[in-house]
């Protein structure tokens, strides 16, 4: 119930293409869903986040689509660039007041030039 399942494990996209990463959850009490980008040797950096009362959020080339009934959410990276090559993690916040995040297992994205 506390898991967040992420797919695919790895993704290769051509420059200019759309990268799509999917996550699914079971716990309907999760109340905040951030996406993080992590480069080798660095900590995760927040990309974009959404709350379950919103179906879509867009920030620049990054869009989160959220399907509350299906308990799924996805990250779309439009016009993918080689600099986007990194590992992406979805996460969900446990509504306990401590803002503890449950992370997915990660997607390693490679954008070919």
């Amino acid at each position, binding site marked *: 119930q506390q898991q967040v399942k992420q797919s695919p494990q790895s993704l290769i996209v051509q420059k200019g293409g759309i990268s799509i990463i999917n996550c699914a959850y079971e716990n309907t009490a999760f109340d905040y869903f951030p996406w993080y980008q992590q480069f080798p*040797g660095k*900590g995760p950096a*927040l990309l974009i986040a959404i709350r379950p009362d919103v179906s879509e959020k867009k920030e620049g080339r990054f869009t989160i689509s959220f399907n509350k009934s299906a308990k799924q959410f996805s990250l779309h990276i439009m016009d993918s660039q080689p600099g986007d090559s990194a590992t992406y993690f979805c996460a969900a*916040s446990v509504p*306990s007041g*401590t*803002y503890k*995040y449950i992370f997915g297992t990660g997607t390693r994205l490679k954008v070919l030039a």
Partner: protein
Amino acid sequence: DAGVTQSPTHLIKTRGQQVTLRCSPKSGHDTVSWYQQALGQGPQFIFQYYEEEERQRGNFPDRFSGHQFPNYSSELNVNALLLGDSALYLCASSFGSTHYGYTFGSGTRLTVV
């Protein structure tokens, strides 16, 4: 404005030894959360400190303990190290009970041999 600072960046320890990792939160932040990230996995919540007290704990044994100082900096201590404790240890800071500004450091890479 300095972000979250963690030290040391790398550490090699022998099985059975004890280790202390340190974290200085981002300026203005008063809450520190610790995560363990095994190779190829997403970060897993260890515990969170707020007002010098452990506020919530993840599924980690008592060998993992922590402390928060009056200046909001924090330490993570791991006793009786096991080979399986080898991981990237991440510290995240935030302000109070909010997702706002939840920021990760670059982590400490611990290798247990």
